[in-house]
């Protein structure tokens, strides 16, 4: 039997980010008066740590809470409860100058490069906006830094004066990356950074993210729904389902020997680009239940191919089944 790790999962001193029992609920009102009638538990108590210079992959289907988790972790949203430690500091208790200072260290890259850039602002200005807010350098130095950033992400300095609509999707994603990098952050949340891109461009952006990580010693939280992309970039991976982490392990462990039935189903559902490979597929029945009214007990039991009676009664905790391999399932121990 593994020991319980609900709160202390992955506790480590070398961690840049420590997420502890983080939860984010959204209120649902009754439509007429502002009376809260229910809560959508988008993220419901997740814990993990991200090591300096590493990539932590957060994977799951739409609506599982991975984007909310990413945004709460860098305090674009306030959590309902739980803490996030950045270099040991609780970022949700910071105020004023301290908060502003820490925001420099945490940046985000969004999924949709079309809607995340202001269409009426030349991209050079979008990139330098953060520098301006944090009063870094003179106007001239800022301009030079923008040029340098553009070169780093594979664009040309003369692109700075152009507007977003003049770029392709892949180029816009590079602009989004340059904008995030301009402040020289330590930590970047990459929220589905390649899922809006064409296949041939995806690999370019993934390689770029890897190169930049080495050059600037970046730590990534990489959020995606695509298992093969996550495997390619991540050092550690957590699989989310309806606001909870169901499995958390190193990349080798998770992709080599996944233990949770949901992880196994996710992997077997990925179409493999090789017609010679024939696998035993686990096809889940039904859709993702609503986070407004999640199933009781284990949230996955309604779709689980191996669920037993007990699964619908009591919720399994995330247990360390093997060193550094955490699973939340009654049938795995």
């Amino acid at each position, binding site marked *: 039997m593994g020991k319980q790790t609900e709160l202390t999962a992955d506790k480590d001193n070398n961690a840049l980010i420590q997420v502890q029992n983080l939860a984010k609920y959204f209120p649902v009102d009754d439509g007429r008066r502002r009376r809260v009638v229910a809560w959508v538990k988008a993220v419901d108590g997740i814990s993990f740590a991200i090591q300096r210079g590493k990539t932590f992959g957060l994977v799951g289907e739409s609506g599982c809470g991975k984007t909310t988790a990413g945004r709460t972790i860098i305090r674009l949203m306030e959590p309902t409860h739980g803490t996030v430690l950045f270099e040991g500091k609780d970022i949700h208790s910071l105020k004023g100058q301290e908060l502003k200072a820490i925001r420099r260290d945490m940046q985000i890259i969004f999924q949709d490069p079309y809607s995340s850039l202001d269409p009426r602002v030349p991209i050079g200005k979008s990139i330098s906006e953060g520098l301006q807010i944090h009063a870094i350098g003179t106007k001239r130095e800022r301009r030079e830094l923008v040029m340098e950033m553009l070169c780093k992400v594979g664009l040309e300095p003369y692109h700075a004066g152009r507007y977003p609509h003049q770029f392709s999707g892949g180029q816009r994603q590079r602009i989004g990356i340059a904008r995030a990098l301009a402040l020289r952050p330590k930590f970047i949340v990459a929220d589905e950074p390649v899922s809006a891109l064409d*296949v041939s461009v995806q690999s370019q952006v993934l390689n770029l993210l*890897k190169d930049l990580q080495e050059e600037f010693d970046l730590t990534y939280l990489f959020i995606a729904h695509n298992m093969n992309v996550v495997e390619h970039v991540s050092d550690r991976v957590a699989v989310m389902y309806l606001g909870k982490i169901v499995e958390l392990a190193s990349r080798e462990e998770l992709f080599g020997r996944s233990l949770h039935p949901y992880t196994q189903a996710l992997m077997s559902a*990925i179409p493999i680009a090789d017609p010679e490979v024939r696998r035993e597929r686990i096809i889940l029945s039904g*859709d993702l239940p609503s986070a407004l009214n999640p199933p009781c007990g284990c949230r996955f039991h309604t779709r689980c191919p191996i669920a037993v009676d007990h699964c619908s009664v009591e919720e399994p905790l995330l247990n360390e089944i093997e060193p550094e391999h955490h699973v939340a399932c009654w049938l795995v121990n």
Partner: protein
Amino acid sequence: MTQTGSSDHTALQPLLQVKDLRTHFFTRDGVVQAVDGVDLTIQHNEIIGLVGESGCGKSVTALSIMRLLDHPGRIVSGEVTFDGTSILDLSEREMVDLRGSRISMIFQQPQSSLNPIFSVGEQIAEMFQIHQGMHKAAALDKAISLLCEVGIPDASTRAKSYPHQMSGGQAQRVMIAIALALNPELLIADEPTTALDVTVQAQILDLIRDLSRRINTAVLLITHELGVIAEMADRVAVMYAGRILETAHTKDLFAKSSHPYTQGLINSIPVLGKVEKRLNVIPGSVPNLVELPDGCRFAPRCQARREYDLEICNEQEPDLVLIGNGHKVRCWLHQSSEGRQVPLATDGGNES
């Protein structure tokens, strides 16, 4: 409801033949050559995959076959022959009869393809009422049994639901029920699973494959995902900038892809269980369809061209030539006309 029209002369002629189809969009910025000389043959009962990146013309090819193009798009030239009749010569009235009953189509966004103000049952029943003159009550009964067939639980209650009450996966099931209601001979599925989650995608792909096999429907499956092609299609056509660059049996395409673009696409996908430090890339991005390069459309991004230092790629466009059993490729590396011997890409060991 079985329609037996054409299955007798299966061997004689293909179900659908597209010859040199050109569909252009006449915009203010110039003529967009979205589809520019596409040839495509679909046999009875086969699943053919059409793969390519966004903007390569795969959806416009499908809409041209259905004759559903909107202004400013127009079919400029070419032939589309469906079961012996030329689709482009039909009147709009005849086309309406054909759509839904013999050729049907499903789209990427099931929620927005359904009518929000009618229940899904009514929308399925409509097929029987319009095409077969059935009465509403009988048509609704058939709709419910169809909902069962596409795997919607509690079908008689769900038939009364409206599209917004259904999840993406369920809405796509309803679309499939509508599309396959009258046992069409051809189903065009345009990115049917792109908007869905992976676990739901697997369900929908299985449903399309099983149902189409059972009612003998050929499928033109349009997707940008090679994984979907590998699992579903019998044959594949790879499209790029309005042209087909390579076509082959699915096995051959993955085992011995011959066009540098196809090779690049296959090699640039991260493979589960095979971690590499860097991914292979195709440099650059898809060309602007208004100002296409003179020679081969892929030449500006082609690494094989650079490696072999081929001048001709920038000057003249290669033809789609046969290089193996049903395997055709449009690339100068594989054309040896008039004594012009060009090295083959596959034996040079240059694939990374």
